[in-house]
């Protein structure tokens, strides 16, 4: 068997996105451990639908849906990300060293998405499992309709935090501008905090002094026609 090269690099300039993604998938098929993308220039859809284990290092900013629809991959993005980074991730890890725009880690089913800077509105929307860590602040409607999993925000959050969440938990280190519908603030368990601090330490993110935990208060789980006023407010 021919020796597998340890790291393959590809310069994105002038190449169609389809060709770059095919290159990554081929490298994963060939068992190459690391692929490095140079000059991504905030291009959309990089590293999408990679279904075999590989480590992707992206040297620069990425556009929409980076590392989306992927499984068993680990990604370092040395820049900022556009909308929907790590969309629908199954397993693996995506680390954004800069900021992320709207809907970071939407609908992820597993794995970890880390945004070291700030995240935009609707971070962790419809989270189905896995972990989203935001080192800085997170925007409007963080954790909207999340169903499972965990979101950790070390900084502040904007309005409608955790709105209409079903299950799962959100941990906030900073201020909460406004809580969304159907959720409540509780005191975190010691083992949960322990786990979070270990994770932050692993990603070299400075932990805030304390965390508050947000979970569903279950008031929106079942429709109650006698409490119509509450529903009117929600909708």
């Amino acid at each position, binding site marked *: 068997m021919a020796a597998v090269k340890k790291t393959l690099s590809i310069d994105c300039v002038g190449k169609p996105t389809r060709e770059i993604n095919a290159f990554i998938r081929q490298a994963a098929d060939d068992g190459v451990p690391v692929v490095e993308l140079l000059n991504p*220039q*905030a291009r*959309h859809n990089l590293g999408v639908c990679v279904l075999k284990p590989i480590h992707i290092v992206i040297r620069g900013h990425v556009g929409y849906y980076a590392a989306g629809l992927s499984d068993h991959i680990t990604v370092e993005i040395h820049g900022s990300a*556009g909308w929907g980074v790590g969309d629908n991730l199954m397993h693996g890890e995506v680390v954004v060293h800069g*900021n992320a725009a709207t809907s970071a880690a939407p609908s992820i089913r597993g794995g970890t998405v880390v945004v070291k800077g700030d995240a*935009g*509105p609707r971070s962790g929307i419809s989270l189905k499992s896995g972990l989203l860590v935001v080192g800085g602040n997170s925007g409007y409607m963080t954790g909207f309709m999340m169903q499972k999993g965990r979101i950790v925000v070390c900084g502040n959050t904007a309005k409608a935090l955790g709105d209409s969440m079903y299950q799962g938990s959100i941990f906030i280190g900073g201020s909460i501008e406004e809580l969304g519908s159907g959720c409540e603030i509780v005191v975190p368990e010691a083992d949960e905090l322990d786990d979070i601090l270990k994770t932050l330490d692993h990603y070299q993110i400075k932990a805030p002094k304390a965390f508050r935990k947000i979970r569903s208060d279950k008031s929106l789980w079942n429709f109650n026609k006698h409490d119509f006023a509450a529903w009117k407010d929600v909708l």
Partner: protein
Amino acid sequence: MCGLGGVFYKTTEHEQKTGEIAYRILEGIYRRGPDSTGVALWQPNENGLLYVGINCEVPGTGAAVIERLDELGTVKEACDGNGFVRAAIAYDGADEELVDAIDALGPGITVGHIGGHVEVIKHMGGVANLEANFHLKDYDGQVAMGLTRFATESSIDFTHAQPLSARANRDLALMHNGHITNYHWLRYVYEQMGYRFATRNDSEIIPVMLLDEMNKGASLEEALKISVDKLDGCFTYIVVTADKVGVVKDRYASKPMVVGETDAFVALASDSQSLREGVLTDVEVWELGAEEVATWQL
């Protein structure tokens, strides 16, 4: 969908041509809105001229429009862009009279925008048509903000292409990405108050609302904040006035807008890729949040 983007240079001296940056940004966001492209330009206008942009939907009517402009005032510069006339005229009459006189010329002829500092140019299709007809790349003033339109509600023509303004009011160019869902109600309310509308484009409600709030005493910043409460639907919009550039996002943050600011310039775009390709530097960008309003003074 629509794409928004452009650049505002903080000083008159700058490294790259403003028009070339705007061209690259609008080219980058072309796929967000291939129907038409328009740009609001800021002009220093030391000679006190009036910049007039006129929609001419019927082919071949541009020359007659320029002739009429020369009767109403004195045409200093004019360009018949085959569907849209761009002119700078010496004019000291009432703005409303000028607009009424041009609008009366025939069907499909309407004044799109008038301004003492803000000039609007627009054309069908992509930004290449703006270059071909109006030499956008040659512009080197302080502001060039534009929109690539993806029409959802109203006609695809010059009249409904953006930037839009409040009829017969100077220096208020508006570019809107989104959909105003309480448009019909708001339009009824403003019509009752005496405002006249020039198009069936839901975005036209925004400049009218801003004008109304400012007529009632609000500053531009205050009017922008009021609009976040009064407008229903999804919107990110850019407004260019005689002395300010503003950008506003709705309370759901449903439409994208990234901002890149340095000591020299502020660049805006619907996506960061187009922004960076526009300014040709790897500038740090941030995404405007829900209900966020930002303005920059010229």
